[in-house]
């Protein structure tokens, strides 16, 4: 169960269902409910970690390694088995990756740019976002294997995605209460898998997994539960008194930075990550009645750093830190990511003003350079253990 989700996250294209076409998408603001309702299996396209190849002749090195690696994957034929790719307006580098792919993609490739607003509030924002959701739905209906996004299909897809998020929410609570059972790195790997596996299967697995972990947490032991035992085994054994941390950043291509934090003696109990809680924490109380409401719901989610205004995310991070009683924060900054880099000093100051020390680590090609980072992390953890960060 857990292994299947983690494996799907690590290699999404190998886990596509065979009974329907698959469609790649790039940003967590792409409503996968619409892709599902149009009859496709949505695959969140990440980027392979490591040095880039052909993309380097199209994008300068100051485009982030995520944008370059994403383009690299596409140029290397990664999208060959997909019906197309949906990009969304996220930032200038991803826009450039999309533009480069438009020039280089094989003739007839389906490429859609979901031209989302950068503003989340103000007159006309909802109407414009709804028009973009409609444009996406119409475009998908015209792709081979696609179908019209009818109201009942959209409602069904919305329920399915909401189920997934609810189960991830239950797992998030276990991560926070029992990081010894469900380490933060494993939680993110599971969340990644939930964006890769066939969604009905993912929903079933996640619900069962949540049951298992909750039971294990109640019993107080991992031994009785298969998946929980496996997850707990992933966490390196450390002395007691592991500081509780929050991590903040963009899209992580691998869990390496998170594992490095855990190996340094801290627990990740909350996150403000693109793959993690920022994407999962939707208000799910009501069911959107159509595309316009769904689009509006995406506007109201916890925002990414590329959206304006930034304050809701800052407030969210501080609230998370309080709710999960974290002792400190680690910023995982994707090198050359302008939106997060601009937000970093203010968000750092907000967190530190609550008495929580922070640490900044730079992520490139999917990982943190481990040597120096490990030393800095260990010193940071020691500082927290010594009481340098009790809120």
């Amino acid at each position: 169960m857990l292994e299947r989700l983690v494996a799907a996250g690590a290699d999404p294209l190998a886990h596509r269902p065979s009974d329907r076409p698959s469609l790649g998408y790039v940003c967590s603001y792409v409503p996968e409910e619409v892709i599902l309702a149009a009859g496709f299996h949505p695959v969140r396209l990440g980027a392979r970690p490591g040095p880039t190849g052909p993309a380097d002749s199209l994008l300068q090195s100051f485009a982030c390694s995520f944008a370059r690696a994403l383009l690299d994957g596409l140029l290397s034929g990664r999208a060959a088995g997909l019906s197309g790719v949906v990009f969304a307006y996220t930032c200038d580098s991803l826009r450039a990756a999309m533009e480069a792919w438009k020039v280089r993609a094989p003739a007839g490739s389906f490429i859609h740019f979901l031209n989302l607003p950068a503003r989340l509030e103000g007159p006309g924002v909802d109407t414009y976002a709804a028009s973009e959701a409609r444009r996406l739905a119409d475009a998908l209906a015209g792709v081979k294997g696609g179908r019209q996004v009818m109201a009942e299909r959209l409602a069904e897809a919305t329920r399915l995605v909401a189920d997934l998020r609810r189960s991830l929410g239950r797992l998030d609570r276990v991560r926070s209460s029992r990081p010894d059972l469900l380490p933060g790195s494993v939680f993110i790997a599971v969340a990644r898998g939930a964006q890769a596996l066939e969604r009905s299967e993912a929903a079933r697995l996640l619900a069962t997994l949540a049951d298992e972990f909750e039971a294990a947490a109640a019993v107080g032991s991992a031994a009785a539960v298969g998946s929980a035992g496996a997850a707990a085994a992933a966490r390196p054994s450390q002395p007691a008194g592991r500081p509780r941390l929050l991590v903040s950043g963009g899209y992580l291509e691998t869990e390496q930075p998170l594992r490095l934090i855990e190996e340094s003696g801290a627990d990740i109990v909350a996150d403000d990550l693109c793959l993690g809680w920022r994407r999962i924490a939707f208000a799910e109380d009501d069911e959107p009645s159509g595309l316009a409401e769904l689009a509006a719901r995406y506007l109201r989610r916890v925002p990414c750093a590329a959206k304006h205004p930034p304050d809701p995310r800052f407030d969210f991070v501080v609230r998370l830190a309080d709710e999960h009683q974290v002792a400190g924060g680690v910023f995982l900054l994707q090198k050359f990511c302008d939106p997060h880099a601009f937000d970093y000093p203010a968000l750092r100051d907000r967190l530190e003003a609550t008495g929580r020390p922070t640490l900044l680590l730079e992520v490139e090609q999917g990982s943190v350079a481990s040597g120096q980072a490990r030393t800095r992390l260990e010193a940071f953890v020691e500082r927290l253990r010594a009481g340098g960060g009790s809120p």
Partner: protein
Amino acid sequence: MTQPERPLAADLRLAADRDLKGLILKHYLGAYRAKRPFTRRPVAWVTSGAPVEILLALGILPIYPENYGALVGSRKAAVPYCESAEQAGYSQDLCSYARTNIGSMLTGRGELAGRPLPRPDLLVAAKNICDVVVKWWEVTARHFDCPLFILDTPFAADGLTLDQVAYVRGQLEELVVVASKAVRRPAPPPAAFERDLMKVLDLTRQATGLWQEIQTLRQASPTPASALDMFTNLFPIVTLRGTQACVDYYRQVRDELAERVRRGEGAVPGERFRLLWDNIAIWYDFDLVRYLHARGAAFVGETYTDAWGIYQFSPEDEKDPLGAMARQYSLILLNIGLGTRKERLFNMLRAQRADGAVFHSCRSCKTYSLGQYELARAVRDELGLPVLVLEADMTDSRAYASGPAMTRIDAFLELLTSKA
């Protein structure tokens, strides 16, 4: 900086430059005067793609931190400000205009007689040039606790949809209200405001028309104005667009260039090659341009300066000036797709009869630079013209190595010579 032993060209400078210095001085002095009790006027910090005509129609004085960044860069003074921003936690990978301004803001120091820019009453950023300005203006808003308006202009890759125009137009209406409130004035009656706005738009139209005439005059051989003239003469079209002073100044420049063309007088002595420049200037190293000029390679066009001629308002816009602005401000160079950019670049290369192109791959400016490799390849392979890609930064000289750049320029010159 370029190596001093290399001979540089002494360009024929424009007589109008003397007046330009006065315009720049007057603009910034006016901004400081606007903060004094008896000459008070609301000040807005705006991005270079902001719909400034609305602010001017409301009597608000626009100030351009990007222009200030260029000014600091051209004085080779940006690095200490950048370092101050970096010490505060702003990554060295961020835009150097932003770091220069943030550093100046945080330290309270500046390059205008030691002063930073005057404090804003309002901040207006338009996303049409990049997403960086949105974040930079957010930082500024937090620092000054100042009202901030973001004009969200969705990417116009393949033109504009009606929904996009409606979305942007609605925000322009909102700006009138937000700006009035920020400067503590009642929002003007719509009819009166539109009348004032049309007057300003007409001044913009006249200025951009003259700017286009100037670019057209540069098609002459030898070219009457080089990149050095144009980069410095950019100031009014950027910061004074929508004012009579801007129109008057460019009329003077246009007439001077027309006279030069009539006399067959070139800006670059011994013009042998005609080049086009892509991207922002390297403000701290104009010697690089002079070096090329000294070898008869004259810049006859720049996509960067040309971009300011796009605001084509017409008296017809009276029916819906905000709609016209929504379209114009959405279709600026950095908000259009690569295919359209390539078309415009090719048209410009042909119109200016260029023999080659220099691409400044500017690490600060992603929207301008990402895509240049593809454009450079197209110019080389489809038009058969030599191209040179220079890795640098417009303001932060730490990101630039002049030695390797000069070696590549020499190789580029050899290629131009062999093709001549």
